[in-house]
């Protein structure tokens, strides 16, 4: 097992596996995990998988999904990956309404490289590169990347969840399943943001990490559906056929 004890990655990877199985899609799926702890999913998901350079998952996914429009394609990205180095790729893929899903693992730090500050790091949060706590004056405010994407036309379903309790885990699974279903209905870009514990870099026990998410992180990143334009929305095909 490559993930640290109490890490959200292992839970969400398992959820993805369960959803793919339930949807009976294992032989029609392509997963794109770029750099970050996310990349290790290819050790655990028995589906076709392509790495991507740090931040470029949404561009790689665009290439794959355009060539193979009837496959289930999803990227699996950390916050540094998606909200820092890959902002452009993410926003433009969403804006084009690319019909793939992004599972966005927000743990408010760069996990794999040892806990440096991420664009999503909370105000006041200490990291190895914000040792005195993130300050708005010096580092800017946390980027609400999902909210930013939600205002784009091409994005049709965006939900923020967490994995801090059994109920929350179930809810995340439901959200992933919905995103995948919406994708297969070719409605547009779908995103599930998961507030995910990184006990190692937060220097907390797994339990304390879950409490911290519930008490601190959800204040900056409120849980719930940020956008759902799937009900009655015409598919991308229909929209394009006008």
């Amino acid at each position: 097992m490559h993930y640290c004890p109490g890490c959200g990655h292992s839970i969400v990877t398992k959820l993805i596996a369960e959803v793919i199985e339930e949807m009976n899609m294992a032989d029609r799926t392509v997963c794109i995990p770029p750099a970050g702890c996310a990349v290790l999913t290819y050790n655990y998901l028995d589906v076709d998988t392509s790495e991507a350079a740090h931040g470029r998952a949404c561009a790689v996914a665009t290439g794959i999904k355009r060539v193979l429009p009837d496959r289930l394609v999803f990227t699996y990205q950390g916050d540094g990956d998606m909200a820092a180095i890959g902002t452009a790729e993410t926003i433009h893929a969403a804006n084009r309404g690319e019909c793939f899903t992004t599972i966005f693992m927000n743990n408010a730090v760069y996990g794999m490289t040892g806990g440096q500050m991420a664009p999503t790091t909370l105000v006041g949060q200490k990291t190895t590169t914000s040792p005195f706590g993130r300050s708005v004056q010096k580092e800017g405010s946390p980027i609400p990347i999902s909210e930013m994407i939600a205002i784009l036309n091409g994005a049709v379903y965006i939900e923020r969840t967490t994995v801090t309790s059994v109920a929350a885990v179930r809810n995340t699974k439901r959200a992933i399943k919905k995103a995948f279903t919406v994708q297969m209905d070719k409605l547009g870009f779908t995103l599930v943001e998961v507030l995910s514990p990184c006990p190692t870099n937060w220097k907390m026990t797994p339990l304390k990490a879950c409490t911290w998410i519930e008490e601190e992180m959800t204040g900056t990143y409120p849980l719930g559906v940020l956008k759902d334009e799937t009900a009655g929305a015409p598919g991308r095909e229909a929209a394009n056929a006008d």
Partner: protein
Amino acid sequence: MNAPDAACAPSYVPRPPSRYIVSQKSNLKLMRGNTVVGEAAVRAGCTCYFGYPITPQNQLPEYMSRRLTEVEGGIFIQSESELSAINMVLGASVAGARVMTSSSSPGISLKQEGISFLCGCELPAVIVNMVRGGPGLGNISPAQSDYFQATRGGGHGDYRVVVLAPASCQEVADLTMEAFDIADYYRNPVLILADGMLGQMMEPVTFENYSPREIPEKDYILDGAKNRPSRINRSLILNPQMMEEHNWKLVRKYKTIERNETRYEEFMMDDAKLAVVAYGTAARIAKGAVKRARSDGMRVGLIRPISLWPFPSDIIRKRASKTDLFFVFEMSTGQMVDDVRLALEGRSEVYFHGRPGGIISTPVEVLRIISRQYYQKELGK
């Protein structure tokens, strides 16, 4: 619903085939270099193009945006950046498509990350660089100053990209078509290194010189693991022993490419005492100068590398026994000259002339230098 099958692809109104000026007498078409690349690519089976506008290659994405609507499964995306474009290329390539991107110098710098990944993952792709003056934003005039970047690899890691340097629109057509086969055959990116001059120039071309190669089965494609075990495309190899093994495997492949894909043209080299070594647009200029030098009675020839990697070192070394001076002429401050020196291993003298920054020498200027060198070194004796 009559939507096109490519689900998320934008809808389009098919347009009539692109307008060439077609000769009545032959199948030659008068076309601009940039559009020649596009047409050749489509004829070689390229169905995907991803790119970001930059002068002097814009006619190519413009052409593809129209032309690929006429192709089954054709995909064109004007990406948000070159970084994005090359990574879309990676995605389409791993999904099994024939795919191309193009740019000019500053844009190619941005593509280097993706090129390194394509090499690491052993994925085919065709990349076109219509080189312009640099460094930095430089200008939009033709130049050859990206030779090092192209042949040494501007990205990280021990890797090689096949680099083909056409010198005419016809060769642009031939080499572009060939590039897709080479890329697929070896599972390696191929770079077409031309310049703004070739991109803008109009010449008659035919696309009939292409005979497709037999390509090994693409057993790496990711399209869902139906009736087979799942596959992983990656260049991340954390185990150092396995990483080393992977690199040696790449080296073996590069050696095979060196053996099979080295290309060059020799012009009037049989009795030449002085050989001009030049590629692409510079070689065209040099050829004019060589012809004039010959009519003036000088024993001068031209060696034109067509593949810049693999570099035709053997033929240059072979010629050293009879040729006393190798005059390297480039539209840069001197980059290929290093490869010529390496090839000669001190066997013969090397003289360099180059003009950077988008200045194009005239044949008369090159002839003047040839004559001076020829008589100063008493090669006429």
